[in-house]
């Protein structure tokens, strides 16, 4: 064992989780064996490894660590499934689909908008306000981002405008959720509908049927030439600026949420608003700030989508990503690193779905459903075992 691994292992809550991680890794290795560059043309070694992962998972699950045991079992099953499918395919096709550096770079691109929205949602939900409206706030960011970038001819003004638009949408949600004590699911849904209607209306009104022009300034990529052309260079060499911001944002959010007084206040409002009020925290103020911030972050993810990723806008282009982000948040147990890991998982499934058309053009359409299926499975498998903030979704009445 290296010197690096020891402190990490020591900080793990208990030995069972360490075993679970071993199970998860073994499950992943089971899949990896059958894929390029190794491409073992037999599923037997994978089956052995997958069985080990599942056994470890079951062993952990019956000893009480059901969440991580479940992860290990799932890793084993998926590992064998992927390995088995890979052995059915030809090596040529496998090598054209599974280009690890391209897949991982695409994973980061697909995960970034999700990560922004999920981290935003964490602020809102940790402060006690359910934010179903993330989807609409992303859409606002996507449209107003590209519109302002076009009209003002500057990508950073576009990004700023997108963030402000998302913040405004979130503020509406905040007023409804906090002062009007509306059902937060209903007001979040209203924000989603309004965003679809408003952005669709303005899109047609301004750009008509031609769509957004192609010469809109976009958020630049960060070129890191010193990484070279190798595996690392292919993944990290020319990532978009927003991807790097998202990568920085994950530990930053963790630090704010769990290591600063502000984070403590936000969490207090989400767990026990009455107690927070008693010690002099303005519950309304904290919640307004957290919800508005969540909209701004989600909108930043949306703006990345329109002026960083695809460089165009079409109606309802977020396509449920806000909800996937919400699922990632739940999957990650309302914690930044967990949510980011879930975003990477969903991002990977999107990246894979994008490359699978190699196999069958018509079936490729079906693969588009993969991220949604995975989200559904994730939500079904984890909820009940992940613990939401105690007061989430309940309006707070001052006394």
């Amino acid at each position, binding site marked *: 064992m290296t010197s690096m691994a020891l402190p990490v292992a020591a900080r793990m809550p208990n030995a069972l989780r360490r075993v679970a991680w071993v199970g998860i890794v073994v499950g992943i290795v089971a899949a990896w064996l059958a894929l390029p560059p190794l491409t073992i043309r037999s599923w037997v070694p994978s089956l052995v490894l997958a069985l080990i992962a599942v056994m470890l998972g079951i062993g952990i699950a019956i000893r009480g660590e059901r969440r991580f045991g479940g992860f290990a079992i799932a890793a084993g099953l998926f590992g064998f499934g992927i390995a088995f499918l890979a052995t059915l395919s030809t090596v040529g096709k496998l090598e054209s689909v599974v280009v690890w550096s391209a897949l991982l770079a695409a994973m980061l691109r697909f995960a970034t908008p999700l990560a922004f929205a999920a981290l935003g949602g964490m602020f809102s939900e940790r402060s006690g306000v359910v934010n179903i409206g993330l989807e609409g706030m992303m859409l606002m960011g996507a449209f107003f981002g590209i519109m302002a970038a076009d009209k003002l001819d500057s990508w950073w003004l576009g990004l700023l405008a997108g963030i402000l638009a998302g913040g405004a949408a979130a503020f509406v949600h905040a007023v409804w959720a906090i002062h009007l004590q509306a059902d937060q699911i209903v007001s979040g849904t*209203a924000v989603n509908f309004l965003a679809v209607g408003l952005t669709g209306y303005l899109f047609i009104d301004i750009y008509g049927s031609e769509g957004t022009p192609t010469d809109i300034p976009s958020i630049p990529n960060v070129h890191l030439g010193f990484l070279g052309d190798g595996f690392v260079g292919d993944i990290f060499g020319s990532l978009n600026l927003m991807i790097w911001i998202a990568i920085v944002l994950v530990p930053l959010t963790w630090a704010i949420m769990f290591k600063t007084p502000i984070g403590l206040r936000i969490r207090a409002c989400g767990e026990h608003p009455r107690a927070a009020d008693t010690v002099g925290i303005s519950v309304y103020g904290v919640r307004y700030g957290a919800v508005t911030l969540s909209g701004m972050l989600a909108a930043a993810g949306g703006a990345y989508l329109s002026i960083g990723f695809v460089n165009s806008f079409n109606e309802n282009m977020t396509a449920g990503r806000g909800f996937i982000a919400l699922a990632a948040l739940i999957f990650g147990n309302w914690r930044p690193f967990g949510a980011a890991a879930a975003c990477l998982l969903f991002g990977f499934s999107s990246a894979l779905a994008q490359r699978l058309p190699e196999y069958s053009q018509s079936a490729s359409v079906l693969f588009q459903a993969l991220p949604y299926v995975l989200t559904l499975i994730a*939500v079904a498998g984890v909820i009940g075992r992940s613990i939401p903030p105690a007061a989430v979704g309940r309006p707070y009445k001052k006394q």
Partner: protein
Amino acid sequence: MSTDAGGAAPPPGVDPSGLGPELQTSWIERYGVAQRAEGILAPLLTTVLAFLVGGLVVLVTTGKNPLTTYRAIFDGAGLSWFFQIGNHEIGLPWSDAKVWFPWNVNDFESVAAVNLQQTLIVTTTLVFTGLAVAFAFRCGLFNIGGQGQYIVGAIWAVWIGSSFEGMNPLLHITLAIVVATLAGAVWAGIAGFLKATVGAHEVISTIMLNWIAIWIGSFLFGLGGPLQNDAQSSVPISNDIVESAKLPILWGDPLLQGLHTGIFLAIVALVVYWALLNRTTLGYGVRAVGFNPEAARYGGIGVRRNYFLAMAISGAFAGIAGAIDVLGWQFRLATGDIQTSQVGFIGIAVALLGRNTAVGVLLAALLFGSLVTGTSTRNLDPEIFQPELAFNLTLLIQGLVVLFVGADLIVLWLLRRLRRSGLSA
């Protein structure tokens, strides 16, 4: 009040709002009327507010007169038909007798009549998708998945409708509708099952099921897909359904999307919805769980069972909507229809505006049916307002309605103030 001899009529000159039991009843009656009026007034106010804001958007963005725009939408929806009151006769069914009727139902082809047929077709669909949301709401569940359940129902209906050629029409239609209903129920039942067993939030699971349904549909009818049209291999569309599976046309030209008999099913569904909720043990359980799951559990009502059942029944309503759209006027499914359809989502606004009651859902469905039809490219006068823009106006108004329904606190507060000042005056 009659001044019967020997009756206790108040002596003249005495203020009737003095003491006595008579006043009490009248006060309670007045309060009762006001309370019932709140049930109508609050949604009405919500709608008016939404239209005001929508009109403002029209004015600010295009500089056009909102009233002219709304008038064009009104005409596009064919609602002007109702104002053409005249002296007409209709024949009673199963007899030769004719009776007077204010509206000319024999008018099949006038623009207003054709437009109204479209509106009623959409209203029929929206009644079902509205009920799909409303039923789950009564159990405290938010079914955002009406769209997916609708699509699944439509897929099964188009598959059954385009197979089994030469079947007895009644049997064929019944089979298609029943299977679509079950498909919708199963699709929503997945979310209900997950809610009941592991507590997965139905909002997220139904949204995911929506997208899964959309992509499955796009796969099935897309190029090279298993259910793609046999004759035209380059068009992403399903086979046409056969004649025996088409719903009979009630009013209008069968070739120009006349109003189909599915509207009767919608009325039946409204009655079933009301009776199921208010007159059965199942409905009692569903409502009890909706009011307070903890109390229901304490009272011996199976909360999990009701979560599952409420979702499944909700999905059944949405599944029927998909079936009658396919059997009534679409007759085929294109992948474009599947990806752009919004009826499931509009159902949310219908249910919320209709306060989850049968009558409310009917009225709200009429409102949104008129809006959707009135803003469609086929019906709206492009000289007055660009239809593509107007459809987004519909979505905007839908969002505003949901937003203002969420703000019932303001509306109720306003009404209470009005009433208090009215009573004390």
